[in-house]
């Protein structure tokens, strides 16, 4: 039961990328202060913090990151809880913040995600990310995350005739959007040929099918809708918050060509919002790999199974086409600091619905969605948003 409506009144992001001169605390502060300024709220008004990092212990040796974030942002002595749900940590933290406000327990809640990934070698980063799968039976055998998504891609190609060029078109579109985003890691366009000629990582996925290793943070401020106008003229209402889980181990799932947790979370979210897929104007989906965006477009109900790859390659999901997908540049173009991604997605949708997305603005965007996945699909979080002014 939802006790009261919840709105986002402030969002902030750090620049995503290889931030050699910035540490975990710098990134937290950069995004956190931007969000507080956006909400026109003081540090002392915040009542609770949910902080998300996936593997800060392995990346920088720092645990206890939510209390650290509260400390760094001057939220004196408030309760702070770290939330870890692999790459869906950010979306999960957002949902917990939503529940805290909706329940009436807290009025003003900050949700903040951060990851500092470039202080370790790529091999160490790959091992840290591997912990999002089944450590004993996947990572132990040297199965990497590109490997897991490659196994899904190969089966999708086998069952539906999906091609490597169609997968490449996801990365091309997302780089094009990223080129218009000041916060994005890669502000440059790429071509299908660039993707096809990039180094093979795990057959059929090539380097440019994969989201990068990134540093970054994103923060959002949540309040009850009835108080939202005090902080922001265009509050964005969260009209659905849904989450589902599945087996950690990929091979144990019912299917390799869908992410069932996404389907369940999406169905619940549409029901809560009393909306259908066709009502969504702009969506941020979890494109950790090109194939993942194809799966997401099908599992979220935008396309029938096996039909999304061609539609994306035909340009149906580019900016201001049939459905604008990953206007931020997605994980591929904007970057993927894992603990921050879910909240970055929410920030992008807030900007889109307010009409503040500048060069990448979707015309007449009224309803937005975010979709955040953990691991190879063991967690999926879906939120739907609307303007509330």
């Amino acid at each position, binding site marked *: 039961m939802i006790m009261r409506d919840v709105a986002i009144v402030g969002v902030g992001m750090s620049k995503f990328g290889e931030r050699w001169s910035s540490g975990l605390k710098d990134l937290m502060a950069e995004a956190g202060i931007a969000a507080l300024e956006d909400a026109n709220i003081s540090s002392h008004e915040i009542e609770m913090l949910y902080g998300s990092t996936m593997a800060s212990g392995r990346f920088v040796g720092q645990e206890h990151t939510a209390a650290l974030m509260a400390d760094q942002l001057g939220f004196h002595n408030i309760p702070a809880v770290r939330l870890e749900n692999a790459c869906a940590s950010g979306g999960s933290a957002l949902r917990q913040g939503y529940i805290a406000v909706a329940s009436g327990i807290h009025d003003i809640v900050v949700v903040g995600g951060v990851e500092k990934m470039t202080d370790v*070698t*790529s*091999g*160490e980063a*790959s*091992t840290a990310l*591997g912990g999002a799968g089944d450590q*004993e*039976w*996947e*990572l*132990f*055998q*040297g*199965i*990497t995350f*590109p*490997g897991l998504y*490659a*196994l*899904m891609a*190969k*089966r999708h190609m*086998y069952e539906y005739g999906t091609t490597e060029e169609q997968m490449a078109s996801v990365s091309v579109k997302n780089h094009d959007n990223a080129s218009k985003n000041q916060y994005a890691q890669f502000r440059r366009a790429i071509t299908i040929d660039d993707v096809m000629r990039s*180094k*093979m*990582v*795990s*057959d*059929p*996925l090539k380097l440019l099918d994969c989201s990068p290793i990134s540093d970054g943070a994103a923060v959002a401020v949540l309040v009850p809708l009835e108080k939202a106008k005090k902080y922001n003229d265009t509050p964005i209402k969260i009209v659905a918050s849904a989450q589902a889980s599945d*087996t950690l*181990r*990929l*091979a*144990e799932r019912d299917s*390799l060509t869908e992410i069932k947790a996404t389907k369940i979370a999406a169905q619940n979210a549409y029901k809560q919002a009393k909306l259908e897929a066709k009502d969504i104007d702009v969506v941020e989906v979890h494109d950790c790999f090109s194939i993942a965006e194809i799966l997401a477009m099908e599992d979220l109900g935008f396309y029938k199974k096996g039909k999304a790859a061609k539609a994306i390659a035909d340009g149906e999901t580019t900016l201001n086409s049939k459905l604008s997908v990953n206007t931020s540049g997605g994980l591929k173009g904007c970057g993927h600091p894992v603990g921050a991604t879910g909240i970055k997605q929410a920030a992008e949708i807030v900007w889109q619905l307010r009409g503040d997305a500048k060069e990448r603005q979707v015309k007449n965007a009224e309803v937005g969605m975010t979709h955040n996945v953990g691991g190879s699909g063991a967690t999926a979080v879906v939120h739907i948003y609307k303007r509330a002014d």
Partner: protein
Amino acid sequence: MERSSSSLWRKIRSRYDLVGNECKNCGSNYFPPRVVCRKCGRKSKMVEKKFAGDGEIYSITRIRVPPDTFKDEAPYFIGVIKLKEGPMVEGHVLENGIEPKIGTKVRLRFRKMYVEGDEGLIYYQYKFEPV
């Protein structure tokens, strides 16, 4: 990450002999073994079951950028294998001249998995070989 020998030892029957389990309440087969049946939850009645190791490739990839533990092994094939008894299991697929692709039949082999540094443990486990 260097592991204690007990982390390997406690799984040795599964890793060496493909011992999984079966739920006597619903008949589901599991490899790797589960403590609790996914279908039956609290009503699970799990008993050991050894799998033959015969199956076919359900999906396949070749990993070229490995985690540090496998840096001397890459590139290597990883498959999702559908065992003839039902369970789907991820594992290494050996190169023996037969192209491993979806539908290729495989059988069980026992091989070295990796060596932990110069003085650490040597891990062994099942792998699959195309037939």
